[in-house]
Structures are given as structure tokens and as C-alpha cells.
């Protein structure tokens, strides 16, 4: 009895100290969270609210007229050329995400399973990110230099006699846009897929092999299913970056390679139609939120715990 009471007493003390500790921890948490929350409110929520406010109004020549009209949204979703361009941007974003994943996967596999020493993995990781040390614009121009009529590729093709005159199908079209976007954003897919593959315990692969699984089976039934959340995370990033890009289409795109962000730039920069530009912005943000929610749900469902 005594022992129990004695044992209980300090226990009670501990638990009350624990409550105090939790309250303290909560206060500290508020303190720690306040700056990011303030930042988030001031630089994300408030601007979004302002943009939403603008999107409901209209322009009377040079003056903005506040209002509560859905007209700009109707226009953004139905009037030529906005929905077509939105669709085109979506397709370009999806192609970028798909191709980046396809290119990134073998590289990430090799980094996770082909490189034994951590130092080599670190080195290859740096090599993957290295292109990002160069300016984005420079890389887009580099592709112009590669694909152009007097470009590296055409010169080489003509030198070895495969073609008689420069191929004009390489540059100034959708192919060039998607290729450039894929090249630029692939590192994000590599790192994201690699981070996921790296988590797969070697023992899992070895156990499968001991039980007689072939390499193909190991890939299909272990590595591929486990990699899905990493592929999804990478695809969300590459899709968003590809979808929202406007420099690449204006530099290497053809006459009809117009993306939704080019339209927004035009609306704000040439016709001063802030309300319509804002409405398109809100549509894009809403679209992104839905996409992120879907991707999150899919990632949670496919995530494997070890």
C-alpha cells in the first residue's frame, strides 16, 4: 500500500508538471508559429483576397469599378481564347510532368540502388541540381542554340549527311516548349523520386530475391508501388512549374504556343484589364488547390510505412 501511494504521489506530481510543460510548450509553439503565420497572412492570404476583390469588378477605361459580378469568371471559362489556352497549358503541364518522371525514374533508380557509397550519391545529387546554378533564361536560350536552323543539332545532322537542309520542325513549336520545360524541371522529379526510393530497405529487396523473385518482379511488385508517392510529388511540382511558365513558350514556342500565364501578362501589361487577369489568376489558384488536394490524397493512399 505504502509503496503504491509512494509510487502514485510522484506520479501525480509528474503528471501535473507534465500539464504545465504542455501548456508551456503550447505557448512556445504559438510563439514559434506566429512569424510564419503572419508572413502567410500578409503575403499570401491578403494578396489573394485583394486579387479576388479585383476579379469581381470591372474596368471603366482607366478606372477600376468595384463590383460583385461573376462576369470575369464567365469570360475566363467560356470566351475565346481563355478556356482553350487554359486547356493547352494544362496539357503542356501534364506532358512536362509525365516526361520528367519518365526521364527521372531510371536516374533516381541508379542513384538509390546503383551507387553504393553515400559520397557518390551526394556527388550525383549535386550534379543533378547543378544546372539550377545557371540562370533559367540562359538554359532556355541554350535550347534555342541547340534546336535552331543553324543550331548544334542541325549542324551535326547535316555534317553526317542525314539531312540536306536544316530541319525546321525542331524549334518554334510545342515540341520545343515541352522539351525545354522537361529539361529544366526534371531535377525536381529526380530528387523527389530518389528521396522515396532511398527509403526502401535493402533487406526487402534481398528477401524478395531469396524467395526467388526475378529483377523484373522486384521492380514491378516492390520498387514501383513504393515509388508512387515520390513520383506523384515530383509530378505535382513539375506540372505546376510547366503549367505556369511563360518565358519558355515565348522564346522557343511557335505562333500558337500561348500559355495561360502569357495571357495574364498581356492582360495586366497591355490592355490593363486587371479584373479579368485577376479572375484567371483565381481560377488557376483554385485549380492548383484541387490538384494539390488530389495529389495529397493519392500520396497518402499509396504511401508505404516500413
Amino acid at each position: 500500500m505504502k509503496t503504491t501511494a509512494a509510487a502514485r504521489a510522484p506520479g501525480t506530481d509528474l503528471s501535473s508538471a507534465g500539464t504545465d510543460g504542455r501548456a508551456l510548450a503550447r505557448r512556445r509553439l504559438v510563439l514559434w508559429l506566429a512569424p510564419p503565420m503572419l508572413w502567410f497572412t500578409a503575403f499570401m492570404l491578403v494578396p489573394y483576397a485583394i486579387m479576388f476583390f479585383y476579379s469581381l469588378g470591372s474596368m471603366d477605361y482607366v478606372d477600376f469599378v468595384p463590383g460583385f459580378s461573376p462576369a470575369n469568371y464567365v469570360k475566363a471559362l467560356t470566351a475565346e481564347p481563355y478556356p482553350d489556352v487554359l486547356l493547352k497549358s494544362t496539357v503542356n503541364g501534364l506532358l512536362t510532368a509525365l516526361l520528367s518522371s519518365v526521364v527521372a525514374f531510371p536516374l533516381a533508380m541508379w542513384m538509390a540502388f546503383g551507387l553504393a557509397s553515400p559520397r557518390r550519391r551526394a556527388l550525383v545529387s549535386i550534379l543533378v541540381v547543378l544546372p539550377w546554378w545557371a540562370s533559367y533564361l540562359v538554359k532556355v536560350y541554350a535550347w534555342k542554340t541547340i534546336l535552331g536552323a543553324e543550331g548544334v543539332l542541325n549542324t551535326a545532322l547535316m555534317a553526317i549527311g542525314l539531312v540536306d537542309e536544316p530541319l525546321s520542325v525542331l524549334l518554334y513549336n510545342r515540341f520545343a516548349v515541352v522539351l525545354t520545360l522537361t529539361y529544366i524541371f526534371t531535377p525536381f522529379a529526380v530528387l523527389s523520386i530518389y528521396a522515396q526510393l532511398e527509403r526502401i530497405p535493402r533487406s526487402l529487396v534481398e528477401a524478395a530475391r531469396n524467395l526467388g523473385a526475378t529483377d523484373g518482379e522486384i521492380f514491378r511488385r516492390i520498387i514501383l508501388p513504393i515509388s508512387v508517392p515520390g513520383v506523384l510529388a515530383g509530378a505535382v511540382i513539375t506540372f505546376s512549374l510547366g503549367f505556369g511558365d511563360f518565358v519558355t513558350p515565348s522564346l522557343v514556342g511557335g505562333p500558337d504556343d500561348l500559355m495561360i500565364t502569357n495571357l495574364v501578362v498581356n492582360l495586366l501589361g497591355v490592355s490593363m484589364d486587371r479584373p479579368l487577369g485577376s479572375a484567371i489568376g483565381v481560377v488557376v489558384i483554385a485549380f492548383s488547390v484541387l490538384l494539390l488536394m488530389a495529389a495529397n490524397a493519392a500520396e497518402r493512399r499509396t504511401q508505404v510505412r516500413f
Partner: protein
Amino acid sequence: MRRAARLATAIGLVLFTASTAHAAKGRLNVLTWEGYADPSFVKPFTEKTGCQVKATYVGSGDEFVAKMVGSGNIFDLVSPPNDIARRLVDAGAVEPVDLAKAPVTTKFFPVFQRPAWLEKDGKTWGVPYSFGIVRIVVDADKVKNPPASVAVLWSDAYKGKVSLWDDMETLYMAARYAGITNVYEMTDAELATTKQTLLKGKPLVKKYWFSAGELDTLYNSGEVVASNAWETTLVNAWKAGRNLVEIVPTEGRGGWSDSWMVAKGAGKNPCTYQWIEWVSSPEMQALGHAVTGFGYSHPGMIDKLDPTTRGYLKRLQMDDPAVLSKVSWWQPVKRRNVYLETWNQVKAAKKL
């Protein structure tokens, strides 16, 4: 869009920080294009007048409006193009200029003395500075016996070798080609006609160019043999010994003209009119030309250039008042958003 080339500048302007020293004596805040407040003529200005010049650069014409309307009198001077200038007047962001305080303007080319786009309520609202005529440029080695018409840009013979400026000017040009007379106040029907005209030519287009440097590259590599272009494209080609020539189309040529305008209340700043007088002089405009390659409002500018450059400008007839008077100078477009939408529809359309 005109100087969308300065994309980098535009991005840099996100970091735009405004100075508030408007009232301080001996200071001038100008909102302008890059090259319009170049150290080569700003430094001697400061030495002579004691006025410090702080320049903020814009990446697109709209920024003049965006920064002037609701920026609370930060700037003293702005230099918008002729299709934007009226918006600043209508928005009440600028005040009329007192031409008596800038006597040099009486020496300008006749077309730049109180031009229509700077007149409202019997007052003058700006002083013309730089200008350019939009030229139809062809590669004479590949385009033989071109017609004296913009029709060359709609000729099947050059399919896939045509470029067009990604700018409202191309819309005006197509409208002129379609026989529309007042291209700055088009009706819906006229805009529809213009759109069809542009769509008809679209299969020939390799690329809508957005910076003069980009167009130069397109001509250099032979990817393009015909386009509408700035003078700098011709001059650069001539300097490099390439055979680019201009076609003077019977349909007429569009022209842009930037003007210095005085922000509301800035006329009191003693530096303001000193600046206008300074940058309107032939000597300073010649220094400006060295940076931008543009034409300038004072005819005397051309005589201050080196003989080679002068030769180019004379070949371009930039010194001929009669030629300048025939240019279709851009006018304020009330329905700018409808124009832009039409242009975007053309660009978004699939090749036929």
C-alpha cells in the same frame, strides 16, 4: 509589349523600391524606359544643373499607368508611348506642359509639334522624345521583286519564313491591309475582318517575335525572310553587311513616339523643365541614339552623329519631314482590351 525584350528588367522591377524625395530641391524622379536616362547624358545634366536624377525603369507600357495612377506623386516625369499617353491625361496623373519653358521644342520636326495624341482640351500634355517607324523588312537575297505592299507577309511563297511583331501594331497593320481606314477606332465588324486577315496569314508565320534581338537572330539564321520590324534590325543587318531591305508599303506604316510628360504638380520642381530642355537638345538626343538606336524629335540630332550612323538614318529617311508626316502615328485606342483579346485569339488559334 513593345519592349518585352526587357523581361529581365520587368522581373527586376518586382523589387521596385520608390524614392520619396519628390519635393526635395535638386532632385528628379523619372519613370522611363531603359536607355532614356543613360549616364552619358544624365551625368553632364547633374553637373550643369545640380539636379540629381533617379530613374525607375519600366518593362512594359502599362507600367507607366500602373505606377502613375495611385503611386502618390512619386515621380516628376514619365515617358510613355503615343498609345498610352492619353490614359495618363484622362486619369489625371499628369499636368499640361508649358511649352514656353521648353523653347527648344519649336525646332522639332513638324509632326512632333503638338501632335494629336498629346492634345486635349486645347492644352498640350507632353513633349515628344524618341520615335520609330515600323518597317516591312525582307531578306533581299531570298525575296526577289517584292511588291510595294504588306502583302509580302501574306505571300504563300514564304510559307514558314514570315515573322510578325507580337504587338498591337501588327493588328493595326493587318487592318490597314484589309482596307480599314481608322485602325485605332475599329468597330467589332472591322476587328473581325482584321482577325480573319491575320488568321489567313497565320500558317505562314514561323514566330511572333517579341524582342528586336530575337528578330535579328531569326533573319541571321535564315529562319525568317520577311517581317515587320524596327529600324535597329535594318541598321544591325547593314552594319553586318547583310542584304536586308525595307519595303515601303502603299498601305502605310505605323509609328510609335514616346513623350516626356510632367506628373501632376511636378511642374513646380525647377529640375523638371531643365530636364525637358536638356533631353530635347540635338546633342543629348544624339547620345540617346547611341544607346537606343531610335529616331529623335529634334532634326538637328542627325547632324551630331558620326557619318556612318548618319548615313543609315538618312537611308531610312528619318530626317525627312515629308516622310514622317505620312506615317500612321499610333493614336490612343479606347478599346485596348478588345484589341488585345482579338490579338490573343489570333495567337491562340491553331494553324489552319
